[in-house]
């Protein structure tokens, strides 16, 4: 089971989650809307004190772009 999911992730590795951390305001909308729940607040803060999102397992990203579309601050996008 674990092996198969890894294979799928590998096949979808073309989705790269890019976070422009300095633009983030830590609203958390991206984390909530993500259907596969792979985003979480980082432990680090940007220069304005906001904890921007990081992907716990980028390989699981399905490329739906809901995070990108729902971000009010142009701080996250999918490559």
């Amino acid at each position: 089971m674990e092996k198969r999911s890894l294979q799928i992730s590998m096949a979808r590795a073309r989705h790269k989650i890019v976070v422009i951390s300095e633009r983030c305001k830590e609203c958390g909308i991206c984390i909530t809307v993500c259907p596969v729940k792979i985003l979480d607040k980082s432990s680090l803060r940007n220069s304005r004190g906001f904890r921007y999102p990081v992907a716990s397992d980028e390989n699981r990203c399905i490329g739906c772009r809901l995070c990108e579309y729902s971000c009010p601050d142009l701080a996250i996008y999918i490559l």
Partner: protein
Amino acid sequence: MAVAVEHPLDKYVRTEKLPTLWCPGCTIGIVMTSLLRAIDQRIREGLLRRDQITFVGGIGCSARIAMYVRFDSVRTAHGRTIPLATAIKILRPEHKVIVVGGDGDICAIGGNHLLHALRRNMDLMIIIVNNMIYGMTGGQVSPTTPLKLYTTTTPYGNPEKPLNIIRLACSLGANFVARGSATHPHILQQIFYKALGKRGLALIEVLSSCPEIFGRHIGITDPVKSFMTLRDKIKVKNNPSLDESEYDWEKGFVIGVYLDKDDPGYIDNLSLLYKSLRGF
């Protein structure tokens, strides 16, 4: 960390003005990016030229969209966007002139201008970002604030019935009337895409969540909760009827395109009239 990152929409944004002044979790930014995606789509399809887009914004949080987009953009006084945009459209008819403002800006102080732009079927795209409150000035009642709600200027509850913008616009002769929601960015982008191709007046009311101000009044200040509260009230319909446009915070809101026709716009009528006069 010194990697130069570029958002795909950065080419349409005055990035030097970022970050925006909007509060964390304010969804006006989603409205802006949905609009930019729709514009980008039209530009890529060769249906729109980026040097022929003009934004006009007034005063208020959502009017700041005009401040952040990298097109010709004109800021003006509170409520006075529509006449200014009208003049630009008359003199630059090839331009897509987009008016962005909030419910207070366009429906309250600028209400008379809205009325007459609708009557004229003026060739503008008017985007009303409706957060149901005066955000920038600190939470006063707006024409779209739900009945009975506490605001700083209705401390005993709002005694006024809110304005149904969709009903107003449909009754006065606009070519395209739609309601969208910032919580549904894909649908919003589709609506904007359609509206950008219209002649005559295209009016889009966009419901948006305001966690800091409206949220404080309804007791939900968490950005995510605020977003989800609004999202739960939205029903998506393909071609909703006017009766379904009912504007009621308790009952929720139907989003979709309420009116889509192709009557001649003001510019069509004007140029027809002037052509016979001038011979060109």
